[in-house]
């Protein structure tokens, strides 16, 4: 490949610019701005142009020439037919001349309004999804043979069984940290043995369900959104609909049902690991014996707390799966939408879980706590 070259010579009154070599994107000398400045300077000095020595002229180079000529043909130009046609093509570009839409004033007001409207639409759609699920449940009572067992058990395994190690590990570590930090405080008051009450209530009633919910929302919620989203992108959901298979019954219902079942079980499992971790830490830090801890736990922590934890697990699972499926079904066929919807699903699910948790705390404040007993 030969580089693009310009040779200038003075011929009588005029400057003669002779261009030769390959004038293509790959061979143009960089920086291009310098080249363009040189071409413009030649145009200003009313040069006559000879392009016949150019071996190859591509649109980029032609565009540069055209621009430096001030968007018009120069007075003196020697060029072959092929070069003229390339230049003519560049001269005839149809640009989109519409002005970019003007940004309105009070952009934030529009954004806020759009946010509210979108939230409303999401709310309506979620209510519709819940209604559809209730109809599905009614249908399944009438036709128990249509229960999607395979999908149900697959979700149970993927979101439940496969989450056992990570929830146990996290629960155990939280138990250790909590026990260790509280024991330092309790020792100062000489109230060592209250560690059992503290850990029992906080982990079983509060931390276990919330930690599992956060883990499951990140783990299974995102997976559900992405799965349904990709099925929408690849038109698999339309294929299902064509075969007369209800997408809510086959895709959404098994996920919601399986997660609502798996979550309470995971909560029990995670809380057990947390209490165990707390017990180990209490033993190491304060010398509290395992026997005492196990003996005291049922005495100081009412069974109601376990039921509250399990109940929270059920509702959290319901919320996470519903939100995940809802946003999965809203994915539009492009990569950007897939990623934003997955993010939104996880963030919304965790936020809603915390809100539901707060509601639980208010309505169960008289149950299972020492003051209420």
């Amino acid at each position, binding site marked *: 490949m030969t580089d693009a070259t310009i040779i200038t010579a003075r011929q009588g009154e005029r400057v003669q610019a002779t261009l030769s070599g390959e004038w293509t994107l790959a061979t143009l000398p960089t920086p291009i701005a310098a080249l363009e400045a040189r071409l413009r300077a030649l145009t200003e000095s009313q040069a006559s142009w000879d392009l016949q020595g150019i071996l190859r002229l591509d649109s980029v180079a032609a565009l540069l020439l055209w621009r430096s000529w001030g968007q018009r043909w120069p007075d003196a130009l020697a060029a072959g037919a092929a070069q003229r046609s390339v230049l003519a093509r560049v001269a005839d570009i*149809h640009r989109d001349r519409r002005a970019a839409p003007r940004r309105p004033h009070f952009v934030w007001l529009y954004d806020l309004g759009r946010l509210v409207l979108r939230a409303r639409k999401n709310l309506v759609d979620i209510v519709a999804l819940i209604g559809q699920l209730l109809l599905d449940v009614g249908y399944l009572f009438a036709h128990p043979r249509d229960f999607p067992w395979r999908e149900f058990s697959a979700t149970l395994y993927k979101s439940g069984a496969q989450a056992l190690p990570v929830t146990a590990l996290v629960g155990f570590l939280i138990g250790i940290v909590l026990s260790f930090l509280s024991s330092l405080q309790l020792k100062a008051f000489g109230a060592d043995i209250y560690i059992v009450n503290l850990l029992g209530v906080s982990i079983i009633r509060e931390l276990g369900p919330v930690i599992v919910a956060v883990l499951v929302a990140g783990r299974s919620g995102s997976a559900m959104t992405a799965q349904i989203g990709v099925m929408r992108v690849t038109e698999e959901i339309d294929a299902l609909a064509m075969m007369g298979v209800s997408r809510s019954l086959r895709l959404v219902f098994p996920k919601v049902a399986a997660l609502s079942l798996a979550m309470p079980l995971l909560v029990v499992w995670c809380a057990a690991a947390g209490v165990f971790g707390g017990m180990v830490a209490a033993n190491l830090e304060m010398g509290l014996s395992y026997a005492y801890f196990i003996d005291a736990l049922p005495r100081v922590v009412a069974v109601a707390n376990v039921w509250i934890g399990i109940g929270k697990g059920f509702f959290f699972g319901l919320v996470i799966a519903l939100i995940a499926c809802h946003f999965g079904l809203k994915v539009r066929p492009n990569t950007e939408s897939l990623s934003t919807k997955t993010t939104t699903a996880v963030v919304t699910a965790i936020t809603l879980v915390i809100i539901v948790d707060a509601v639980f705390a208010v309505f169960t404040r008289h149950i299972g706590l020492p003051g209420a007993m």
Partner: protein
Amino acid sequence: MTATATASTISPVVELRGVCTRFGETVIHQDIDLDVEAGQILGLVGGSGSGKTTLLREIVGLLLPNAGSVKLFGQSVSAANPQQRRGLRRRFGMLFQRGALFSALSVFDNIAFPLRELRVLDEEIIRDLVYLKLGMVELEAPHAQLMPAELSGGMVKRVALARALSLEPELLVLDEPTSGLDPDLADSFVRLIAMLQKELAFTVIMVTHDLETLAGLATRIAVLAEQRIIACGTPAEVLAVDHPFIRSFFCSEHAAAAMQKGLV
């Protein structure tokens, strides 16, 4: 100047020597030699699963053959030097079967993407070039703001072609250029490619099993069967080869009519 001109006539645009491909136990290609000279339009045909697309991916360097060498413009595609490799990749464009448009970018940004990646052009030139390419593939300026999801199948192909041509490559690689288009659209797409080829004088390699496309475009045909290239030459030469695959592929009644139409 003359030296490069002769050099480019000597080394073919694409040169395959002894290419062998295996996937596990299955042998896909055995000892394939293929030359494509500048300015040719080569149609690569073969039965389903004969490894046409695999061969195409090896030519553009997306896949490494188990043995043999692939050279583009006289340079190995798997050259060690990344700088060289990047330079080489800018000299050809590929049109993927399903377009492979970046779904998160608008039509405009899709076409502008390779130009922006060069980092030597200013936004104004890029904008002009994008509208130039849009015009070349017979799309209108307002289409530039659409997202790939809003395009019809034919438009996706056109935008993908515009993107493949955005750097004005010397070699254009087409994977099933007309698949998924109705005959009318396929016909106009073939005419578009032929017109652009005449105008920009690039070399084309295409995989297709659409005889109309083949007849309308190809100046040479290579037939892939039984793990090797059983025939390569002008359409007339290939039709004259006596081989069961070629007979069944080209010589059914419909096929003969299509080829006749193209040859006449």
